[in-house]
C-alpha cells in the first residue's frame, strides 16, 4: 500500500452491523440447533365455591376448573439480515374462567414472522396474529391474518420507504376464524416515507366488511388517511408538528342502528415542543371527528371535538409542574352539543421535602364545567387530590392521600365527596424471611343523590426467602348508605399468594375469600383456591456464525441517557441488568429527585407519559447493584380527563409503540362493563401487550392485584410470568 492521497471522513448516522467470518456451523444432524426456543407450560387447577346470595359473589361460576396451556416462541437468526420467528400458544381447557364455554384443545395464538433485509426488496412478513397499527384514526387493533412490510431501498436523498399491507379478522378463537371467514374482515395498506431528520409522511387506506350478524345486515366501510410530521428548530425551540386527515365513507352501526352510505372527516393536528434554554415543554392538540366518523378499527371517539393545551416546567429543585386546559364538545353534530371545559394542574416531585426530608408526591387539581345547549346537563366540578410518601426512618415509609371533590349540578342535585388514605410500608425480617408490611386505613364520604360513606382498613405483606415468596392482603370495609332505602354493606376480602421458583419450575398457590353482607339483603360468600405449576424451557441457538453487532445499546452503561424528556420516559435507561449506578446517573441528569425506598424498590414520582394526568410512579427493583425490574404504575383516578380506562391504556400503548414498534404479542379478552374494577378482579377482562427487546420483555397491561386496586402497569424485566396468570402486578408498590 502506498501513500494516501485523499481523505474524507464522516460519522455515519446509523449503526453498522459487523459480520465476522462464519465458524463452526451447526451439527447437520440436529435441525433444531440453530433455533433459539423458549417454551413454557402452565397447568392450573381451581375450585370456586359460592355460599348464600349468588348476586353477592365476585365469581360467576362455581365448582372445579382446570386448564393446561403451552406457550412456544422460537427464533432463528439465519444471518444478520434474515430471521424467522414463530410464536404459538394453545390450551387444553376445562375452565369457564379461561375461555368461557370453549372446551378441549384450543389454539389461541399463532404467528410466524420472516424478516429478510438482504432480499431484492427487504421485507418483514407475518402470518397469524399480529397488531395492525397504522394510526388511531384508521386501525389500531390486533388481527389474525397476514401482514407484509416492504422497505425498498430507493433512498436517493436518505428517505426511507415502508409499504405495509395487511388483511385479517379480529383475533378470537381459531375455530371461529376458520368457520366464519367473512364475518368481520379488515384489509389495508399504507405507505410511510421517513426522513433522517425524523419527519415523515403516511398515506393509508383501510377497508372493513362485516357479514350479517343477528338483526344487523351485512355492511362495509372504508377510511382513507393522510398524515405527516415535521420537526422544526428556531429561536431556541424544538418543535414537532403533526397532523392527520382521515376520510370515512360507508356503513356503520354506531350509535345503535345500521346507517348506510355515510361519510365524515376526522382531523387531528398537534404541536409539541420544548425549549433549549429553559426547562419548559408544551403541546397543543386539536381533534375533530364527525358523527359518522366510525371506522371500526379506530381508537378515537366519534362526534367529538377536542382542544387541548399543556405546558410543563421543571424547577431546579426537581418539582415538575404541568398545566392543562381542555375543551371537549361531544354530540358535536347534534342540536344539543355538550361542551366541557377543564383546567387543571399537576405538581409532582419532592413535595414538602423542605418539611420532611425525602418526601415526594403528586398533587392534581382541576376545574371542569359541562353544559349542553338545553341545559339538561349543566354541571361544575372542583377536584383536588394529593398523594405524598415520605421515609419515616431507614426501614419505614409512610404514604398519605387526600382528595376532595365538589360537584355542582345546576339542573339537579349537588354532591360532594372527600376522603383520605393513610398507609405505611415497613421492611420486616421474620425467621429468615424479608419483605414489606403495609397497613392502610381509609375513609371516603360522598353526599348527594347516592350518599355513601365508606370506612375501611387493610393490611398486606410480601415476604421473600430464597426461592419462596408470599403475598397476603386482608381488608375490611363498611359502606354506610346515607339515603332513604339505601343499602349498607360490610365487605371482607382476603387474597393470598404463594410462589416457589426453582430453576425452570414455578409452583404457586392462591386463595381468596370475599364476603358481602348487605343490609337489607342476603349475605354472600365467594371462595377460590387455585394451584398452578409452570415449567419453562429455554434452548439457546447454537451459533451459525459469530455475527455480532457493534452497537449493543452502547452508552447505556455510562448513564449518558436521560431518564425522562419532554416526550416521556426512556425505557432504555432502565434496562434490566444495568448497574443501578447508571440509572442513578440518568435520574440525576434528568432532574428527577431522590426516590422513596420500599424494600428493594426505589420509587420515583414523575410524569413518565406526559399526556396523562393520572398519578404515575416509577419503581426500580435493585438487587446486587443491578436493575432487576423497572415498573411504571399509573393510578386510574379521576382527573377530569374523561378518558376511559381503555383510552388511557391505548394512549400508553401508542406511546410505547411509537418507540418500540407494534407490540409483538397482545392478549385482549372481554369487554369493560360499568364496573371495570370487578371486570379486572374477576378475570373477565384481560389486557396485556408485550414487546420482546434485546434487554428483556416490556409488558403493558391491567394486572390483578391482591389489594384489588386497578391500575395500568408497564414492566421491563428479563422474564415475566405467563400471561394466563393475572397476578403480575408489583404488589409491593401500593
Amino acid at each position: 500500500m502506498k501513500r494516501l492521497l485523499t481523505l474524507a471522513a464522516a460519522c455515519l448516522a446509523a449503526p453498522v452491523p459487523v459480520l465476522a467470518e462464519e465458524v463452526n456451523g451447526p451439527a447437520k444432524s440436529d435441525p433444531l440447533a440453530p433455533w433459539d426456543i423458549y417454551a413454557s407450560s402452565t397447568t392450573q387447577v381451581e375450585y370456586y365455591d359460592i355460599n348464600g346470595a349468588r348476586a353477592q359473589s365476585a365469581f360467576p361460576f362455581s365448582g372445579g376448573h382446570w386448564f393446561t396451556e403451552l406457550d412456544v416462541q422460537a427464533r432463528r437468526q439465519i444471518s444478520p439480515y434474515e430471521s424467522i420467528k414463530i410464536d404459538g400458544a394453545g390450551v387444553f381447557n376445562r375452565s369457564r374462567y379461561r375461555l368461557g364455554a370453549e372446551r378441549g384443545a384450543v389454539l389461541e395464538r399463532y404467528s410466524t414472522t420472516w424478516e429478510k433485509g438482504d432480499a431484492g426488496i427487504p421485507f418483514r412478513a407475518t402470518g397469524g396474529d399480529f397488531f395492525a397499527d397504522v394510526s388511531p384514526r384508521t386501525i389500531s387493533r390486533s388481527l389474525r391474518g397476514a401482514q407484509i412490510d416492504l422497505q425498498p431501498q430507493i433512498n436517493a436523498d436518505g428517505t426511507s420507504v415502508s409499504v405495509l399491507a395487511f388483511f385479517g379478522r379480529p383475533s378470537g378463537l381459531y375455530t371461529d376464524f376458520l368457520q366464519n371467514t367473512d364475518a368481520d374482515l379488515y384489509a389495508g395498506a399504507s405507505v410511510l416515507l421517513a426522513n433522517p431528520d425524523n419527519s415523515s409522511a403516511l398515506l393509508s387506506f383501510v377497508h372493513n366488511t362485516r357479514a350479517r350478524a343477528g338483526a344487523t345486515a351485512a355492511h362495509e366501510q372504508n377510511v382513507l388517511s393522510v398524515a405527516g410530521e415535521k420537526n422544526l428548530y428556531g429561536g431556541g425551540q424544538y418543535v414537532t408538528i403533526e397532523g392527520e386527515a382521515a376520510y370515512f365513507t360507508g356503513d356503520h352501526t354506531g350509535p345503535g342502528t345500521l346507517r348506510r352510505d355515510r361519510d365524515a372527516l376526522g382531523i387531528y393536528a398537534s404541536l409539541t415542543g420544548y425549549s433549549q434554554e429553559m426547562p419548559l415543554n408544551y403541546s397543543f392538540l386539536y381533534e375533530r371527528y364527525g358523527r359518522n366518523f366510525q371506522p371500526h378499527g379506530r381508537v378515537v371517539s366519534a362526534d367529538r371535538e377536542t382542544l387541548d393545551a399543556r405546558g410543563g416546567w421543571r424547577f431546579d429543585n426537581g418539582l415538575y409542574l404541568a398545566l392543562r386546559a381542555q375543551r371537549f364538545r361531544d354530540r358535536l353534530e347534534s342540536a344539543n352539543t355538550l361542551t366541557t371545559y377543564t383546567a387543571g394542574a399537576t405538581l409532582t416531585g419532592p413535595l414538602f421535602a423542605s418539611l420532611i426530608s425525602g418526601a415526594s408526591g403528586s398533587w392534581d387539581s382541576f376545574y371542569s364545567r359541562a353544559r349542553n345547549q338545553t341545559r339538561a346537563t349543566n354541571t361544575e366540578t372542583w377536584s383536588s387530590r394529593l398523594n405524598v410518601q415520605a421515609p419515616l426512618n431507614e426501614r419505614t415509609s409512610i404514604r398519605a392521600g387526600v382528595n376532595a371533590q365538589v360537584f355542582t349540578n345546576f339542573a339537579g342535585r349537588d354532591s360532594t365527596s372527600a376522603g383520605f388514605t393513610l398507609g405505611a410500608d415497613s421492611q420486616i425480617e421474620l425467621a429468615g424471611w424479608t419483605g414489606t408490611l403495609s397497613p392502610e386505613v381509609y375513609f371516603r364520604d360522598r353526599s348527594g343523590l347516592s350518599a355513601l360513606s365508606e370506612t375501611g382498613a387493610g393490611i398486606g405483606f410480601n415476604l421473600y426467602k430464597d426461592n419462596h415468596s408470599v403475598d397476603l392482603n386482608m381488608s375490611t370495609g363498611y359502606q354506610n348508605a346515607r339515603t332513604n332505602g339505601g343499602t349498607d354493606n360490610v365487605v371482607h376480602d382476603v387474597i393470598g399468594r404463594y410462589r416457589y421458583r426453582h430453576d425452570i419450575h414455578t409452583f404457586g398457590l392462591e386463595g381468596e375469600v370475599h364476603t358481602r353482607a348487605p343490609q337489607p339483603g342476603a349475605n354472600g360468600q365467594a371462595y377460590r383456591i387455585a394451584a398452578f405449576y409452570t415449567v419453562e424451557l429455554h434452548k439457546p441457538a447454537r451459533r451459525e456464525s459469530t455475527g455480532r453487532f457493534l452497537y449493543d445499546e452502547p452508552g447505556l452503561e455510562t448513564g449518558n441517557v436521560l431518564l425522562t424528556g419532554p416526550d416521556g420516559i426512556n425505557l432504555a435507561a432502565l434496562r434490566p441488568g444495568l448497574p443501578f449506578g447508571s440509572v442513578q446517573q440518568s435520574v440525576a441528569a434528568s432532574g428527577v429527585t431522590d426516590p422513596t425506598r420500599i424494600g428493594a424498590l426505589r420509587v420515583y414520582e414523575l410524569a413518565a407519559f406526559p399526556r396523562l394526568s393520572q398519578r404515575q410512579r416509577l419503581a426500580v427493583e435493585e438487587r446486587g447493584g443491578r436493575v432487576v425490574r423497572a415498573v411504571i404504575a399509573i393510578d386510574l383516578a379521576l382527573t377530569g380527563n374523561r378518558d376511559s380506562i381503555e383510552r388511557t391504556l391505548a394512549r400508553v400503548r401508542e406511546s410505547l409503540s411509537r418507540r418500540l414498534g407494534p407490540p409483538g404479542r397482545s392478549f385482549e379478552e372481554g369487554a369493560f362493563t360499568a364496573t371495570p374494577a370487578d371486570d379486572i378482579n374477576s378475570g373477565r377482562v384481560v389486557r396485556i401487550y408485550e414487546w420482546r427487546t434485546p434487554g428483556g420483555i416490556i409488558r403493558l397491561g391491567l394486572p390483578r392485584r391482591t389489594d384489588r386496586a386497578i391500575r395500568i402497569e408497564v414492566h421491563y424485566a428479563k422474564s415475566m410470568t405467563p400471561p394466563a396468570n393475572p397476578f403480575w402486578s408489583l404488589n409491593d408498590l401500593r
Partner: protein
Amino acid sequence: MPAFTRNKLIGLATAALVLVAGTPSMNMSEQAEASQYRKFNRIRVPVDKKKPEAKPDGFTQVARPIPLPRRLSERFIKDVVRAWNTQKLNTYLAGNFNDRQRLLDTIREDVPRDARLRVTGVQGVDVLLQRVKGEGRGYYKVKSVAAARVRLRIEFQDPAAGFTVINTSGEYIFDVALRVKRVKRQP
C-alpha cells in the same frame, strides 16, 4: 460540579456514540415519542444497501479488509476531537448524522467556551467494511468504514470548582476514502 452538568458534558463529548446508540430494530433512546401513527420499524439491511446507489459504482466489497494505517487514523481522530466545541466540527459530521443540527446547537449553547476535548488514547480501530475499485495505471480507490474506540478528556475552567477535568470515552465511526497504488514486488 453538579452531576447534571457533568453528565451533559460527557454526553456531548461522546455524542457520536450516544446519537448512534441502539440496534437497528429497536431505537428506544433517541426517537422522540413523535407521531401518533405507525413508526418506521426498520428492517436490518446490509450496509451497502443503505447507501444511495442510483447506478452500480463499480466498487467490490473486500472479503478481508486491510487495516487502516494507525498513524492516519490517530491523526484524523485528533483533528475531529480538536474541532469539538468549534465551528469546524460541522465539516466532520456526516450530512445524515442523526440530529446533526441539534448536536451542534447544544454544544454551542451549553458547553463552556474554554472547554476543550483531548484524546488520551486510541484503543483500537476496526475496519467494518471495505470496498475497492480499480482506476487504471495501477491505482485503486479504497473506501472504508471504520470504528475507533477513543479515550477522551474534557478540560475547562469551572467558575466554582476551578480547573476541571472529566475523563470519558467514546466510539467514532468514519468513512475513509483512499487512493492507493499497487506496488509490484521486485524480482
